[in-house]
């Protein structure tokens, strides 16, 4: 399942000569492949679900830990969906454990409101604060649909399969989410900003 092959120390062995066999390359395990292919996606889902960077690091570890224990249950074709749905549950779980949704929403709003409007030199951190500030105005269910459809550009059938809901539910949640998101974005942009 998980390769335990040790990497040689970086400064230990000299490079192979012509007489020696070249070092054998170990095929990456399924877990390593999943990390290589899906970690960024899992990371974005966790962050857009409202976790701080530090929380998202721990949560990402939890997601892949769960995956490593469920390898036999998860077909290759369903790997991405499994990781996304696990990420959403882990994020919800962490939010629930911390019960911090109200305080965090206020913090985000302040941070986003204090940020300057994005201009030609769009500042990444402030843009993300603005995005997350607007996302905070969505319910968890709307947010999941919005993030996967609008930000990750997954198709509606794919989102429906991932979230285990019908395509009609995806459509209706997306409609509500878009309305709320754009209204929140407009409010955040319209608020007077602090000059520094």
């Amino acid at each position, binding site marked *: 399942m*998980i390769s*335990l092959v040790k990497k040689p120390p970086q400064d230990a062995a000299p490079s192979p000569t012509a007489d020696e066999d070249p070092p054998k390359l170990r095929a990456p395990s399924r*877990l*390593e492949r999943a*990390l*290589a292919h899906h*970690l*960024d996606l*899992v*990371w*974005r889902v966790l962050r*857009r679900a409202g976790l701080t*960077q*530090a929380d998202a*690091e*721990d949560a*990402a*570890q*939890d*997601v*892949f*830990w*769960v995956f*490593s224990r*469920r390898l036999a*249950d*998860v*077909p290759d074709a369903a790997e991405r969906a499994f990781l996304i*749905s*696990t990420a959403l*549950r882990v994020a*919800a*779980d962490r*939010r*629930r*454990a911390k*019960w911090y*949704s*109200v305080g965090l*929403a206020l913090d985000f709003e302040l941070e986003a409101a204090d940020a300057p409007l*994005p201009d030609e030199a*769009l500042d*990444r951190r402030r*843009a*993300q604060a603005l*995005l997350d500030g607007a996302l*905070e*105005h969505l*319910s*968890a*269910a709307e947010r999941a649909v919005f993030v996967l459809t*609008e*930000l990750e550009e997954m198709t509606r059938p794919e989102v429906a399969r991932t979230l*285990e809901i019908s395509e009609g539910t995806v459509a209706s*949640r997306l409609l509500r989410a878009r309305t709320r998101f*754009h209204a929140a*974005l*407009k409010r955040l*942009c*319209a608020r007077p900003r602090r000059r520094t």
Partner: protein
Amino acid sequence: MTDDNTPSGPRQALDEIELFERLRAEARGERAPAPLAARILEQIQADTRRERLLDVPPPSHNGRVALVLGLSLSVAAGVMFLVSRPRSTPNIAPEPAAGGEHKPPLARPVIDPCSEPSIAAGRTPAIDDFEDGDDAVLPNEQRQGFWRWARETDAPGTAPALLPIPRPNPTADNRLALHVKGPRLSDWGATVEFTFRPPCYDASKYVGVAFAARGPGRIYVAPREVSVIPTSEGGTCERDCHNPHVLKIDLDARFRTYEVRFEELRQRGFGKLPLDPRRLNSLAFLVRSEDTPYDVWIDDVRFITR
């Protein structure tokens, strides 16, 4: 898409689209921190090694089992010796990951609350009819617990007790019921629930749960196994918790009785096992945030006999 205080029309709509496209591009461009993949892999491999060391292999594996067993027991004895040393002895802990908080070793023993469960005899199915007016479930078949109304907006540990109130259209035999009503919620929602005391109840003599309820709206019935409850709350779940077996119930505007068989309950995700009614931690009626605002009545909760 218009606003009274700002210029309206196509230009503003264009600005909004442009802004959203930029935000989307930023979001799509976000990457996990560079060392995270290696750290995750290293941690999972360490956990796996630790679990393998602590697990005793089944005796029928192969001829090398005796050697492996001996080695495992030796290592386990060594680990136990280290664990049981006095507190003054410094612990050898893995170096905390940079940028993240230190996580304790993951193979710590989890106390199984089901080592001494309360067991239902299968002859007194009533869980609570609320006619006594208190928040305690009926003390039938060793059942103990108190109804609580937990909401995402409550501070931790402050979920209020839920007392029954006069129900609409009462009768002489049925005067009281539970009622919860609340505004729109945005995260995990709200629950009406009680936890069995002690926190593992064997209801395998029964085949499901029945209750009367009134909407409008929708609830999810969730007899929760100990395996979905975090260890910090008395369960056995360490990761991906709070994913109970549920069944969605569309409520009516008048009281109706619903019967939910354990076999009908489903957990979200791949390859999930059916509910094990021998290991119940609690019984909850969930209101998810997408079904809020909510206004739900619950009455006459009982198990279903075979």
